[in-house]
């Protein structure tokens, strides 16, 4: 049997380790987008913001030789893009879809062309940059077989896991979360109660943009140590569909993202172990996307979006 390797323990460990290592690529962006959409703003531009974050974290990392500086610097770049998006959609009240698509194409193109200019000018080779270190949790990492898989992950993996209950708690149990939900469900009532709709939407949308930036930065300086034009492969859009699949619930978003990543790492492990697949490997790469599309009819039916999603708020 050519596929015997699937039933070995080392194969399973590899796949599980990879699935966990992939988590931050979608989890930060999905959680952030949940917060933004709860306030009534859909940001299609997160794909472009992830790409700009990935590019700028790579560049900052290359220059400073410090991956943490890469992450922090890239968040500054993303904050500027997020502010521009907020200004257009919340202050000027232009169509969120058009503004988001603009941000997407802008980020896609600018990151690609600036990277090409940077690498041709600086003589940067194909070799990567230093990445955010793995965090080995003492004792737990010593557990045979499962220990290294679960407890020798990247720092940003653990942080993303902590963020799941944190986001859920803030959104559903705090006054801050209540205000976010209020401006997304009934901005007029929120306004009457003295909540500044614009301010809350700015804060929520900026949170979404920054977290998308963390996902993008993780791709470049946490996971791979490199960058390319269109490097995120549409993960920003996948995050958007995860938000929809999760019915705007952080825990469900985590489950959806984890299963997606598991399917993704499973198919790439199979492809790596089976050179005979050749062209069909491109079809296997489609599995995670097909998984998302197949789940939409199942979970999408019950999904209920925030009532004022995509609708700008005008007094009177």
């Amino acid at each position, binding site marked *: 049997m050519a596929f015997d390797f699937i039933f070995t323990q080392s194969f399973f460990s590899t796949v599980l380790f990879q699935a966990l290592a992939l988590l931050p690529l979608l989890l930060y962006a999905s959680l952030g987008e949940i917060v933004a959409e709860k306030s009534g703003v859909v940001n299609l531009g997160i794909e472009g913001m992830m790409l700009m974050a990935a590019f700028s974290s790579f560049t900052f990392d290359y220059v400073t030789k410090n991956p943490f500086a890469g992450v922090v610097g890239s968040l500054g770049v993303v904050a500027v893009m997020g502010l521009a998006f907020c200004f257009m959609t919340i202050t000027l009240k232009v169509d969120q879809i058009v503004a988001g698509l603009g941000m997407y*194409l802008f980020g896609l193109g600018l990151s690609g062309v600036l990277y090409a200019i940077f690498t041709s000018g600086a003589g940067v080779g194909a070799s990567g940059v230093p990445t955010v270190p793995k965090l080995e949790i003492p004792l737990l990492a010593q557990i045979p077989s499962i220990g290294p898989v679960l407890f020798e992950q990247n720092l940003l993996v653990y942080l993303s896991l902590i963020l799941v209950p944190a986001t859920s708690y803030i959104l559903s149990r705090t006054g801050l979360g209540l205000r976010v939900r209020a401006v997304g469900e009934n901005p007029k009532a929120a306004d009457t109660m003295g909540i500044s709709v614009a301010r809350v939407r700015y804060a929520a949308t900026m949170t979404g943009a920054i977290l998308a930036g963390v996902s993008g930065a993780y791709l470049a300086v946490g996971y791979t140590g490199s960058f390319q034009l269109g490097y995120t492969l549409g993960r920003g859009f996948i995050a958007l569909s995860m938000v929809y699949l999760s019915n705007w619930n952080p825990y469900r978003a985590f489950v959806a993202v984890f299963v997606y990543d598991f399917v993704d790492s499973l198919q790439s492990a199979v492809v790596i172990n089976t050179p005979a697949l050749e062209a069909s490997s491109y*079809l296997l790469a489609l599995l995670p996307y097909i998984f998302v599309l197949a789940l939409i009819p199942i979970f999408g039916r019950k999904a209920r979006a925030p009532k004022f999603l995509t609708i700008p708020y005008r007094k009177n």
Partner: protein
Amino acid sequence: MQGRRWLRVASYNGLAIALGLVIGLVVVAVGGGNVVVALSSFFISPISTTTNLGEVLVRFVALYTVGLGVGLALKAGLWNVGGEGQFVVGQIMAFVGVIYIGGVPASVHIFLILLLGAAGGLLWISVPTILRTKFAANEIVITLLFNIVATFVGLYALNGPIRGRTQSFGFPLTDLIPPSLALPLLIPGTRISIALFITLGVAVVMYLLVERTALGLRLSIVGESTETARYAGINVNRVFILVMLVAGTLAGLAGAMHATGVLGFLDPGELQPGFGYLAIIVALLGRKNMLGIGIASLLFGYVIIGAQDMAQLVPAQSGMVFAMEGAMLTGVSLASFLLARRGSP
């Protein structure tokens, strides 16, 4: 008043292009290129030679064909952001037709190739349409996902079923199309083919249907408010299905015409042609009017050639063009803000 309105629409088109141009010039400057050269190549090169003028028209054909469908869907309030993927699948299916259909006269073969391309686009929009109408899924996210899926399917096809005998620098590509199956050219020295007539024919039909019959009115009612439409006895889902399927078919047809009339072969670089996104810009700038979209498409045919020529000054040309497109869409946003402000009392 009518003249005033046109002037206003024209100035917003100008704002969008200006924003794209500024971003392009900044990138050229960052890359150490000559800004004056960039500026002149943007404005002069599209009209400098017959060949380049032909290229403008070639882009016009692709943009207008996709844009008509995007505009039609927008009129009914739906976003077909998947024109890119439908276009790519149209290109691939056209080459499937070139390779796997045989035993028919060339003219029939060409017809079948275009039909297959259109069917590819139709297929590619059918799943998003079902998810939108039966499961109320967001068509924007789904059609965007299908763009990515189309790229993978394209890579599979280029490495498998439609792979040619040669490679270029390790990248797979198809064989050149046999001359008898390429769309007949109209003007020697250019790449303008009979696709121009097909597009203009489609445009006339679409214009008459949408702007001159009750169908267009029905679309607009659905686009304004689905509740009003239901109250008026319009079957909203049927309208949604109609406009989406037409949009996908047109984008697929555009892909097939581009692959067999303009390119003559496919490589991985053609799996991200950018027409699907530009079509959204021209549909918005043309104010969803079937004639307006044509004018905007001609304008953007010019802009694409200008931008591509300008992008020769930097590495990663496709990145430069995408960045300028993004800036132009942002310009469209800002223009809509100004338009809304002028319109309100």
